[in-house]
Each structure stands twice: as C-alpha cells, then as structure tokens.
C-alpha cells in the first residue's frame, strides 16, 4: 500500500528525537 | 410648514432629475422634522433622514450622509416599515464603506446578504443583489486592517458556501489562508474596487496598498522566524524603512506579534503560543497523523 507507506514515512520523520545528547541534558 | 415641506420635496425631486444630489439633499434637510407645530411620525422622519443620507452618498459625501444616518438610527427601532428599514441598513453599510470603516461595513453587508424576507411593498430583492452584498462584504473584509478581528470575519465568509461561487473567491481564499498576494492578483482585485477604496492616504499610499502590505506582512510572519527589513521590503514591494515603520505600527497595535532589532535591521516574528505549548502542539499533530494512518489502514481492511 504505497499511499500508507508514504504517510508512515512522513510520520516517522516527525517523531521527536528524544534520544539526542541535547535532549538528555535538557530533560535532566 | 406643511406647504414649505411640500415645496421642498418637489424641488428636491427636480434636483434629483438633474442629478444634483447634494442640492436635493440640502433642499430636503431644510424640512423641520423637530417642529412643535406639525405632528410627524417616526416613519416619516426616518424616511426623510434615509433619503437625505442616500442623496449625499450619491455625491460621495460620506460625512454629511453619516450625520443623517445617525439621526435615522434613533428612529429605526420604532419603524414598522420593513422596506424603509432595509434601505436604512443598506445606506448605513455604504456609509461605513465610504468612511473606510471596512470591518463594520463588511459585517453589515454580510447581514444584508443573508436577508430572509425578499419582498417589500411590491419590490423584490433578487439573488443578484444578495450576491452583490456578499461580494461587498468580502471586499470590505479584505480591505480591513489585518489582525485577529478581521481573521474572524474572514473565517465566517470563507466557510460560507455561497462565497465559493463568487468571482472574488480566489483572493478570499488566499487572504483567509494568510498567503502572500502577488502584484497581478492585487491588480486584478483593484479593478473591481470603487474609487474611495483606492483613495490616497496621507502617506501617499492608497487604501488598497496599505491593506495589501499589512496582509502580506502578516503572511510573512507565518512563514518566517525572522527576516531582514531589506528582504521584507523586497517581498512587500516597498522600501525597507517603510516596511519597518508598518511592522512597528502593527506590533504596537497588537495586530502582529514580534520584536524589532534596529541594530541588525531584523524583525523577529513572535507567536501567541509559548515554546512548551508549541512542543505539545507538535506532539498532538503527530498523534493526529498517527490516527490518520490507522484510519487509512482500517479503511483498507488492514
């Protein structure tokens, strides 16, 4: 289902990083 | 006084035939409506005030017209003559339009466009007239000062199905979506405007120019985090100093959020929403996008 895959691809790009050093610093 | 009134009315009709509108208005305004001798009902007084205002409007004298329409506004609530009340509303809307109180005019035109009763003393209000009122409402809204109040009226008009059938709809759409308007679109819009809507302002720009520049400035604030005044001027088709001045005025009037760094020559556009709320909003958008994906999957039986 190409349409779904494109939608999911777009969604994946929008996920918050949550895993970068900068995020960890700010979160702590 | 009765005879004087009759003579004045007769002379006024002669002036109207000669298209001497202001003279006709002056002739009628000489009728003493507050006379202690004659008993005059409110409907008669209202009809005279509205007529005088209409005549002054024909000569583009909005100031004099406004004087009489304001007198009429004290009388209209007691009037049972629906035809006359309608004439009052139309006249008031046109006066506001001519006085460049565009947002107020837009609301009144919009109300007129939604007229339910169409027949008044043998005269029929046809669909085209309602459409004209709707178009006038859209035009006035576009010309009104950009800001939150105008945005609300734009939303109402944009969501009104009838507007999608108007010739002016494309520009309404762009203004509602806060998109930058380019010169050809503005020129096409200008062709449909009345002279007072293209009038020159004290700073040598026209009413239309100011409305378009302010709209485009607001549109730019949706696209940019910050922009130099030089680039902003190029985008708006004006000098950088003028761009700064207009931006400063809009910020001080709370019609746009932002701050100006004169040293660096940059405007920083702000938002109504603070950073954490924006973060929350982005997460909500992701959740919505996820829901959409799940809905699409369900529709495909996955």
């Amino acid at each position, binding site marked *: 289902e*190409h*349409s779904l895959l*494109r*939608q999911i*691809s777009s969604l994946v*790009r929008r996920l918050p990083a949550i*895993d970068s050093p900068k995020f960890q610093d700010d979160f702590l | 006084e009765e005879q004087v009134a009759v003579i004045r009315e007769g002379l006024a009709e002669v002036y109207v035939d000669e298209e001497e509108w202001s003279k006709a208005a002056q002739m009628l305004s000489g009728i003493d409506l507050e006379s202690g001798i004659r008993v005059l009902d409110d409907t008669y007084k209202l009809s005279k005030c509205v007529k005088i205002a209409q005549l002054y409007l024909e000569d583009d004298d909005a100031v004099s017209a406004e004087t009489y329409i304001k007198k009429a506004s004290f009388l209209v609530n007691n009037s049972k003559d629906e035809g006359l009340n309608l004439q009052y509303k139309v006249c008031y809307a046109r006066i506001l339009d001519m006085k460049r109180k565009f947002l107020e005019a837009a609301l009144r035109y919009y109300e007129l466009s939604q007229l339910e009763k169409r027949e008044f003393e043998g005269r029929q209000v046809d669909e085209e007239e309602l459409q004209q009122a709707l178009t006038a409402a859209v035009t006035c809204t576009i010309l009104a000062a950009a800001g939150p109040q105008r945005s609300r009226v734009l939303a109402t008009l944009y969501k009104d199905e009838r507007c999608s059938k108007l010739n002016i709809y494309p520009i309404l759409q762009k203004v509602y979506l806060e998109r930058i308007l380019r010169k050809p679109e503005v020129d096409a819009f200008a062709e449909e405007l009345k002279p007072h809507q293209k009038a020159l302002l004290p700073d040598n720009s026209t009413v239309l120019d100011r409305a378009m520049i302010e709209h485009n400035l607001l549109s730019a604030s949706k696209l940019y*985090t910050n922009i130099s005044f030089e680039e902003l001027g190029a985008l708006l088709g004006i000098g950088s100093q003028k761009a700064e001045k207009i931006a400063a005025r809009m910020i001080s009037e709370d019609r746009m959020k932002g701050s100006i760094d004169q040293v660096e020559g*940059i405007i920083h556009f702000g938002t109504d929403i603070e950073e954490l709320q924006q973060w929350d909003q982005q997460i909500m958008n992701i959740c919505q996008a996820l829901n959409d994906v799940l809905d699409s999957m369900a529709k495909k039986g996955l």
Partner: protein
Amino acid sequence: MEIEQRQSELVEQFVALAKTARGRAAAELIVHATSHRSLFAFAELLSMPHIIELQGTEHANFLDLLRLFAHGTWTDYKKNASQLPTLGIDQELKLKQLTVLTLAETMKVLPYDLLMKQLDISNVRQLEDMLINDCMYAGIVKGKLDQRRRCFEVQFAAGRDLRPGQLEAMIQTLANCLSTSDNLLLTIEEKIKWADSMNELNLKHKKEIEDKAEELRKN
C-alpha cells in the same frame, strides 16, 4: 494526510490510464504524470505492468525517468541527464520539490547553502520564493524560514515513495522510538514516585517539628 488525500484521486486516474496505455502512450503518460502540478507519488504507476514493460524498449529511458521521480533528486538527474529525456519546466520544478522532500527526510533544519546547491538556485530570494510558493503553499512542506541563521526549519514534509531497502530502516526507527518513549515514560514515572516520596517525607518531617513545638509550648 492531506496531500495523500488530494493526490489519491490523481493516482487512481493515472493508474487507470496505465492499464491500457502501452509503448509510446505509456511513455507519454509518464511525461504527463511527472509534469502534473499536484502529483508527488509515482510508486503505483511504477508498479503497473505496461510501465514495467518499457524496460529494454526504445522508451526505457522514460521508465528510468519515472524511477527518478519516485526516488531520485535533481542532483541524480544532472548526473544522468544524457541518458534521460529532457525535462520540461514543470518536470524540473517537480523534481526540485521532490528534492526538498528528500532533504527533509534526513534533516529537520535545512541550511540555505545546502538547498541552493542541491536545487541550483543562486540567490536567497529565489530560494525563499521557491520554498514559499512551490513547497509550503503547495502543502508538501510546513516550516519556518530563518534568515538570520540562513536555514529552513521543517515542521512537516510529505512522504516520498519508499526506496528499496528503506522499509527496514523505517521499521527500525519506529521500534527505536517506541522503546525510547517507553524508557522515557519509565524515567518520568520514577521521578514522579521520587517526588511523591520526598513530598511525604517533607510533610512528615514538618509535622514532627510542629508536634515538638506544640509540646514545648504546652510545657
């Protein structure tokens, strides 16, 4: 979602046409699709038998063109321009729009210099006009232009057709995000428990002090 909804009808139309178009007609269909201003999805068309049939024929370069529009960028086109059909203005614009989407896949903040290089645009005004009119207003991208930092911050970018091998990476990203989110939630829960227990201790300690003070007053 909006962009997908808008182009789903178009995709269906082109797919329907591809069922009967063969050879030269299929090649023309490819030109039409890659020129259409509202179409940014080509995987469906690429999987149609009559389109795949173009491989090894005199129109094979049109199949390559369609693959380029499905997965490639403007830079890819320039590298292989001699083997591909010449692009019309609409096609050129579309390929540049698709290039922006590809760049947005890997970077949330796109420097102007990178964009100008990748899109062969020589000045900032032209670049910003392209991003505003052809990307943001076209609904394929949402974001903010930052002139001071000379970059474009991407908030949303429409998805392109998946390249071979991209699916696994996507699944892995989703799995990573899931586990990171779970860990983060656990950490937050722990912090909440810690805050609650500290609060209880504080209240207990405060009560002890007050009780002692009260006792002293009585005595």
